[in-house]
């Protein structure tokens, strides 16, 4: 398991972390766009929040592909899941959602689970 960490270059980790930050902002824009979503062409075409969300989301996927190309998925997954922490922050800051105790507990458990998955990686 230590070999998989050693064989994952720092640059891969940076690509993936950058992807997780951009992806979390993408999620915020997707949420804001989705709230204003109406199923007619005109409102779809002028829904810039949705467009920004999708572009950020695509961008994070491209960064993810680049990162995953040279690193081990098992090392990179825990890094991607850090995106949940960013998203909790943005949900409170930009969307005014309640950050209840179960959400913190769940994100803590999910992060721990991803670290375990990483440790179990071949």
């Amino acid at each position: 398991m230590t070999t998989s960490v050693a064989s994952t270059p720092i640059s891969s980790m940076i690509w993936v972390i950058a992807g997780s930050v951009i992806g979390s902002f993408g999620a915020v824009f997707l949420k804001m766009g989705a709230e204003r979503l109406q199923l007619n062409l005109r409102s779809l075409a002028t829904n810039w929040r949705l467009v920004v969300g999708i572009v950020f989301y695509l961008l994070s996927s491209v960064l993810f592909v680049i990162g995953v190309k040279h690193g081990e998925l098992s090392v990179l997954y825990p890094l991607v899941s850090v995106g949940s922490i960013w998203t909790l922050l943005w949900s409170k800051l930009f969307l005014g959602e309640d950050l209840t105790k179960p959400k913190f507990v769940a994100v803590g458990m999910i992060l721990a689970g991803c670290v375990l998955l990483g440790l179990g990686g071949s």
Partner: protein
Amino acid sequence: MPATHPSPTSAGKTPQSQVRHSQTRPLLMVLVCTLIGAAAQVLIKMGTASLGEHPSMMATMVGIFTIRLLFAGYALYGISTVLLVLALRQGELSLLYPVFTLTYVWVTVLSVIIFHDSMNAFKLAGISTIIAGVAVLGRASRQ
């Protein structure tokens, strides 16, 4: 005029901010998203092998359209994104986004089945912990 033509922003926003929707349906939609997303990631992982050792950003972008596995992977990504947006119409982002991590659980399981990766105690513990975490969110969604 103003009475019959409410502005697009207020029309889109008011129902969301005033009514607290049940989060169970959006949560189930995201669950389906993660299954589709996992299939997408496996296809993308298989497809990136065709990109060669050091693909440029440009080569990666072109590859998405020219490599069949990559294209299929991104098409599935597209479908799961549409589902995600529909789920987000009524769902809280702070509740739904962490559920997305389930994708890794499915990818791990799929890797064992398709790539014959080994299953071990760490992976099992990781899978169980993530599922338990999502269950906590599932319970919270009903309150």
